[in-house]
């Protein structure tokens, strides 16, 4: 596959993921499964942009890792906040 075709397909994939997210947003009862799926979608979208649009996949290791980790940490926080809101609230109460 040429680089041009890969970028075109990745863009279409990102669009499809966004429409899927919008569909999830309109659902009535959000649960853990939808939170986990949304977090995964965010991680995938972030990774595609970092790796392929910013071309960091085969570039400077530290920069690449820093940017990739961002899109592991935020989805992980979304799940943690959903699972343990009271515990986190307790830890962060002054």
């Amino acid at each position, binding site marked *: 596959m040429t680089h041009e075709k890969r970028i075109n397909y990745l863009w279409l994939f990102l*669009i499809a993921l966004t429409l899927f997210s919008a569909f999830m947003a*309109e659902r009535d009862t959000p649960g853990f499964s939808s939170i986990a799926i*949304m977090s995964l979608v965010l991680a995938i979208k972030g990774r595609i942009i970092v790796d392929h*649009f*910013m071309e960091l996949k085969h570039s400077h290791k530290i920069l690449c890792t820093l*940017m990739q980790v961002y899109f592991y940490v935020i989805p992980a926080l979304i799940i943690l906040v959903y699972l343990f*809101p009271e515990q986190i609230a307790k830890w962060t*109460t002054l």
Partner: protein
Amino acid sequence: MNAITQEDMRSEFSFKPEAKRIPGSMAIWAAILAEMSEFAIMFIVYFLGKVHNPELFYEGPTRLNTLAGTSNTLIMLTSSFFVVRAVMAMRNNKPITSARWLWGAVICGVLYLIIKYFEYQWNAAQGLETETNIFYGVYYYVTFNHFLHVGWGSAAIVWVIFRINTGIYTKDEHEGLINMALYWHMIDLAWITIFPLMYVIR
């Protein structure tokens, strides 16, 4: 005597060149990492607000305009795609094509700003203001901050188009275009994080 043989040198400096290559300049990466840190602080504020006010953060997204949020996400992703195609065109020695792709990205940026403006108007009509509750306070602070980034990012793209049209960038030397492209992708990354936090997740 510490004699370093050629063999030692080879084993010590055996990184592949691409493993050390930095796309764009160090200055733009300093800016990008600073901006990503700024957005990270806002996201932490969001998470703290959510655990301390679960009802408000559950109810908040349901009153926002999902269509506006989704449209702006599609627009931001498309603008990023246009910017990638502009860089590819420049590498293929096609500056006019590159500038055309960038105009596409500028149109996307302006569309984003117009949609966001009308979304704020729509919110106001629903009585959703910064003081309504903490969810909307965080929503307005984060999204308006992003709104400003899209504004000056679009202006930066217009500046790069001007530079392309004056023949400053060539197939082999177009670091300014790369820097702008990286910055624009950072703005896109911030938005794809804001979208699920504010409009989707409850």
